[in-house]
C-alpha cells in the first residue's frame, strides 16, 4: 500500500506543530536533521494514519501532503478546499 503521509523533508523547519496536531499521535520527532539542520518529524505507523489532514493543515511550510486510499473514509479534501 502506498503512503498516506508524504513528507518533503527539505521544506520542514522542525517546528513540531504537526506532532502536536495529529489526533492519532503517530507523528514523532526523529533523530534525523535535514539539510538546514532542523530536526524532522516522522510518522511512526503509516497504517494508523486516518488521512485527516490535520498535520498538513497546521504545517506552515507545506512540508506534508496527505493521501487516502480510493474508497477510503473521506475526511477533508483539499481539491474542494474543504468548503
Amino acid at each position, binding site marked *: 500500500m502506498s*503512503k498516506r503521509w508524504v513528507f518533503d523533508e527539505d521544506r520542514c523547519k522542525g517546528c513540531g506543530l504537526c506532532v502536536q496536531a495529529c489526533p492519532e499521535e503517530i507523528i514523532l520527532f526523529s533523530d534525523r536533521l535535514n539539510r538546514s539542520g532542523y530536526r524532522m518529524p516522522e510518522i511512526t505507523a503509516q497504517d494508523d494514519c486516518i488521512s485527516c489532514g490535520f498535520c498538513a493543515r497546521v504545517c506552515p511550510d507545506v512540508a506534508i501532503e496527505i493521501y487516502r486510499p480510493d474508497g477510503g473514509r473521506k475526511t477533508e479534501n483539499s481539491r474542494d478546499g474543504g468548503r
Partner: protein
Amino acid sequence: MKAVYEKPKSLTDVVTHYCPGCTHGVAHRLVAEVIDDLKLEDRAVGIASVGCSVFAYDYFEVDFQQAAHGRAPAVATGIKRVHPDSVVFTYQGDGDLASIGAAEIVHAAMRGENITVVFINNAIYGMTGGQMAPTTLVGQKASTSPAGRDPDHSGSPIRVCEMLSTLPGVAYLARVSCHDARGIMSAKRSIGKAFQTQLDGEGFALVEILSNCPTNWGMSPVESLEWVKEHMVRYYPLGEFCTPGEGE
C-alpha cells in the same frame, strides 16, 4: 490513492524565510488554496506590505506589487481602478495595517473598494524585532513595552474588525484564528468568502487572522499557538462581523 492535501499550485517552490512555526506560512497557503479553488491565478494581483511578509511576492505564482509601509490598500486601489476585472488582494501585518496604515485601510473600507485584505494580527512588530504594536495585548511584553503594555500609557489594543464594521462600504469582515487545524479550516472558508465577495463586486472584504510570532514572543511554536488561543481569542473574538448584502 487520492489527494487529501497537496501543495497548492499558486504557491511557488521557494521555501519561505519565516521562522519555524510562524503562521504567516499557514496564511500564505490558505490564500494560495483559495486562488487555486476559485481559479484566480490569471487575474490575481497581490500587494506585499512592509513587515515579515514583505517577500510574499516570492511565494505566490501571481503578479505582485510591493508597497510602502501601510500603503497597500492605496496601492491596491490604484491597481483595481485600472483593472477592475483583476482580483486584487493585500497581505498586511498589524503594524502595517493598524498603525502606520490606519488611514489607508479605513478609507479603502469607506470607499467600499472592491479588494480583499488579508490581515495578519500577531500582536507585535515581527520584522523589526518585537516592538509593541497597536494590537499588542494589555500586559503583553514587547521590546518597547518591557514591563508589559500599560493601557494608561499606551492605550488599549485596536480591534480592527469591530472598528471597520461601522462603515457601510464594508461587505465582508471576519476574524479567524490559525491556532489549530479547525481554526485553519475556518480561516480558509473566510478567505474564500473574502475573495468571492470581490468576485461578486460586493465591496471591501477583510479577514483578520490571529497569528503567532514565536520568535518575538519568546515561545516555542506550540506554546505560541496555545497563547493565541488562551489570550488573543479572548480579546479578539472570532466570527463574521459583516457579510455581503447585510445592512443595505
